[in-house]
């Protein structure tokens, strides 16, 4: 009788997918922002959703599954980066090309991929804040919750990140080539 009741409360796989699908790509994009490689970002997303699925019986007690998943993604990726650093491993990414060919350079000069490269150089926290605000358009309070920061710290990091991008753009503009 008891097990039956529990089974009834647990969500089915299709229900779960319906809940997570709206923010799956957001998790992926945040993971990719931090891990750079799209393969690793896919792995991270899969891992996070799997963990969430394993805890599906508790999902109703989370008032905001999306926020919870975002925080999980942040922690997972930062852990990955930390273990890579301590293991003295280099970031392996196949999709980021330093663009040595003239063609690539020409593209980079007047295209937006330049911004992506600028963002690579930002500290993790600024990357995440910029990602969540300017790309995902979350509210400050939501970002604070997702990243476990105070709203003030979010604004400070965001302002720094935006200004860093602007400064690089101005530099590039003044020198012609970045």
């Amino acid at each position, binding site marked *: 009788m008891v097990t039956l009741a529990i089974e009834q409360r647990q969500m089915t796989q299709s229900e779960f997918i319906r809940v997570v699908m709206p923010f799956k790509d957001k998790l992926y994009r945040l993971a990719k922002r931090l891990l750079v490689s799209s393969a690793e970002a896919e792995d991270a997303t899969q891992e996070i959703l*799997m963990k969430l699925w*394993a805890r599906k019986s508790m999902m109703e007690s989370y008032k905001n599954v999306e926020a919870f998943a975002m925080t999980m993604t942040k922690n997972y990726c930062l852990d990955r980066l930390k273990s890579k650093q301590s293991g003295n491993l280099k970031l392996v990414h196949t999709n980021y090309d330093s663009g040595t060919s003239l063609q690539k350079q020409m593209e980079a000069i007047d295209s937006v991929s*330049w911004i992506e490269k600028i963002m690579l150089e930002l500290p993790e926290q600024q990357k995440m804040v910029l990602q969540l605000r*300017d790309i995902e*358009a979350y509210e400050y309070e939501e970002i604070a919750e997702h990243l476990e920061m105070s709203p003030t710290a*979010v604004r400070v990091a965001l302002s720094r990140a935006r200004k860093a991008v*602007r400064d690089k753009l101005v530099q590039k503009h003044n020198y012609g080539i970045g």
Partner: protein
Amino acid sequence: MELDNISGLLEKYFEATATAAEERELRDYFSGERVAPQFEIYRPMFKYFSEAKDERSSRKLLLKKHPGYVRWLSVAAAAVVIVMIYLGNSYQENREMEQQKAEYAYQETRKALRLLAQNLDRGADKMAYLNEFEATKEKIYKSN
């Protein structure tokens, strides 16, 4: 007028004090065709942000058979087997030791009983002398 407005919005944007609506206004402005030359420099920034939003995860979500879960399950099963083998072994050893002890006790008891029987036999031999003594005594009584 509009330029002043955009300039003000940009300032708020970089100080991270712009509201969501104000930022939307900026994005709309930069996605349009009529961007003033002095703001042209910011265009790639807003363009990149809107393009980055379109990136999608291409891998299909797999929920069945959690590899980590299965891995841990097999580790747990292996641990259980090892513990059981260990317990079984020590049980077997215990039994063997007990059997040896019992055997030893049995042998010791037998030895003790044999010793007792031997002594009893010896006592019985001595009884034969006593019988002889009795018979002689009877003879003496009768002759008297």
